[in-house]
């Protein structure tokens, strides 16, 4: 029976057929997967001429995003921002983060890095002065004076972490000078940076807060500006990192920020420029 000829073995034929089919199919799938992997491993190269990495204090989120777009369309270079607290960014730079430019909200951090020989000394520029505001969520009773922060309705007050965020340091100093720090301390919620402090107020998770004027113009929030004499000066300073290979484009961006056009944009967001 085993060697019987003439009668086609349908079952074997079908098996062979399926075997070839599956073999082809699996080859096809393997090729597809390999191609996809290759595609993933070698990231798409952008059409921009140079790519600039900027570590920027988070109070700059709105103004720098807008400036970045203008700079990109004017120069054809690409600009990528990492927003975070100045203290955190400075620490990352110490550990070797590959930023080309560091835009700090506080010149003391720039001086610290300068002393460690991590910055290009002649590139250090003071580009703006920051302002503080008392911001509150639109759903709470309007805050019109500083004393209003003490009322029971204001259960939580957001500021940036004064350990490493300049706007947090300024807010703390302001509250100490006003004699309110001890009374308000238990209501404080600390944001990782001033942008997060704003987010707490935007979402209503904090009723009020003390944040940067430059980010306070959002639909969910009302604010009153704090007079300049009442808080320590916020000297926003930027510099090019020593290790960058993109000195030229980096300098172009700093010049752009300090240009007439750049200053006009900064002023529009509430910064003081000289």
């Amino acid at each position: 029976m085993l060697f019987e000829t003439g009668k086609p073995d349908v079952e074997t034929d079908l098996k062979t057929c399926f075997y070839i089919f599956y073999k082809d199919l699996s080859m096809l799938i393997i090729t597809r997967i390999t191609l996809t992997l290759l595609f993933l491993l070698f990231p798409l190269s952008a059409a921009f001429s140079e790519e600039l990495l900027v570590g920027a204090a988070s109070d700059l989120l709105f103004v720098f995003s807008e400036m970045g777009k203008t700079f990109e369309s004017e120069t054809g270079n690409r600009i990528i921002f990492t927003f975070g607290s100045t203290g955190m960014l400075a620490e990352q730079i110490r550990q070797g983060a590959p930023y080309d430019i560091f835009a700090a909200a506080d010149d003391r951090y720039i001086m610290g890095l300068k002393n460690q020989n991590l910055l290009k000394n002649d590139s250090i520029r003071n580009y703006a002065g920051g302002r503080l505001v008392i911001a509150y969520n639109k759903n709470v009773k309007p805050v019109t004076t500083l004393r209003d922060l003490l009322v029971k309705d204001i259960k939580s007050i957001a500021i940036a972490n004064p350990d490493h965020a300049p706007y947090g340091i300024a807010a703390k100093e302001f509250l100490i000078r006003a004699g309110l720090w001890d009374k308000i301390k238990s209501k404080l919620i600390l944001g990782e940076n001033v942008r997060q402090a704003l987010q707490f107020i935007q979402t209503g998770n904090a009723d009020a807060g003390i944040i940067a004027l430059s980010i306070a113009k959002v639909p969910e929030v009302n604010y009153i500006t704090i007079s300049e004499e009442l808080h320590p000066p916020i000297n926003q300073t930027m510099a090019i990192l020593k290790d960058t290979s993109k000195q030229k484009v980096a300098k172009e961006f700093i010049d752009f920020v300090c240009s007439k056009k750049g200053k006009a944009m900064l002023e529009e967001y509430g910064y003081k420029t000289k």
Partner: protein
Amino acid sequence: MNHTDLFPLYLTLKVSIIATLFSFFVGLLMAWILAKKDFFLKNFIDAIVMQPLIIPPTVLGYYLLVVLGRNGPIGRFLENVFGVTVVFTWKGAVIAAVVASIPLFIKPARASIESVDINIENAARLLGKSEFKVFTSVTLPLAKRGIIAGTAMAFARSMGDFGTTLMVAGNIPQKTQTISIAIYDAVQANNIPLANTLVLIITAFSISVLFWVNKFTKGKY
């Protein structure tokens, strides 16, 4: 959603695929040694390897940053000898993902290698097979389920890592911003639509990975 918004997804896939490959080969060797060999301080080494499951991710990230940073011993060596910087690049994210996920591979892989009947392995040895051949043709196929489960778990863990990656690779858009860091960033910036989209994508991924693991290891449905 545009190309830039989807970058974190590409990066996360790239990082977790490479990390899983590392975890697989290194982890398989370690699982085999831990399962088959007895040596001095074995339990201590086992405890060290399992640490990433227990210590906080930020602590793990801090250890890596200290060792791999430009002032750390390994970081300085890599920079001086090969000119490679690991911290704040996607390579740093891969290392963070490997360290965080390798215990999840080793644990089930070791258990299933240990459960392979030694008599079957001895039979292969009796037939003159080398130790390597015994491992690849007897132990590995019999321990298949645990190894597949471990691989999938390690992959899922690599995709979701946050704390360790943030410490070692930072949060640089278009460079080191993986999906979980992009979600954190989007929430901080009050970009709720982007946060929601990314959260849905990663949730769907995680559920399907575990679903496939269960299918492979437990049964038809």
